[in-house]
């Protein structure tokens, strides 16, 4: 069952601009993760934020988590052409078969 829902489904911006993607989920979580998928490749783990954290940074990535609104955002600053990819949020709520569920993704295109 789908837990995370990314928004927007697609996003096109100019190189150098910031890109923001959102993820909403339905039930309580232990943590939320963001993954990147380049065309024709497997997913790559970007960052994890735990339910007791509000913000986390990793290089040009900034993730926020609002458990009261059941939402998260991923901000990519100073975008580059190489950031063109699909981005997925995945939520963990205890492990097991229902433990990690992925959203359908946001397709990000960085225009040179």
């Amino acid at each position: 069952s789908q837990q995370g829902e990314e928004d927007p489904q697609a996003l096109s911006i100019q190189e150098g601009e910031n890109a923001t993607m959102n993820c909403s989920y339905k039930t309580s979580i232990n943590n939320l993760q963001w993954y990147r998928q380049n065309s024709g490749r497997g997913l790559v783990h970007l960052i994890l934020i735990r339910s007791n954290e509000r913000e986390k940074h990793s290089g040009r990535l900034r993730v926020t988590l609002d458990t009261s609104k059941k939402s998260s955002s991923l901000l990519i600053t100073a975008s580059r052409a190489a950031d063109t990819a699909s981005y997925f949020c995945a939520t963990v709520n205890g492990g097991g078969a229902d433990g990690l569920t992925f959203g359908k993704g946001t397709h990000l295109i960085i225009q040179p």
Partner: protein
Amino acid sequence: DAGITQSPRYKITETGRQVTLMCHQTWSHSYMFWYRQDLGHGLRLIYYSAAADITDKGEVPDGYVVSRSKTENFPLTLESATRSQTSVYFCASGDWDTQYFGPGTRLTVL
């Protein structure tokens, strides 16, 4: 090289045939996972394994069989392939907090 590999990368088969997709990891991760990725559905968990000889169902296990006799290998078998199993299949290893994905197998069932 260290990492996670899948074979074959592309496979075309016919309805009713048995197909086995292979997954091999060199990290000695305890957990391994199989997902399928379809347009409109995102990634869905088929089966996972917590250790050798321990497997469990995910969200969409019907029509699939897995085994894990060795920590490093986690093959996925479609016992009698159906057109609805046409998909891209990803194997991953790691744990529930961080998963490392293979390059995927694109399977077409005619």
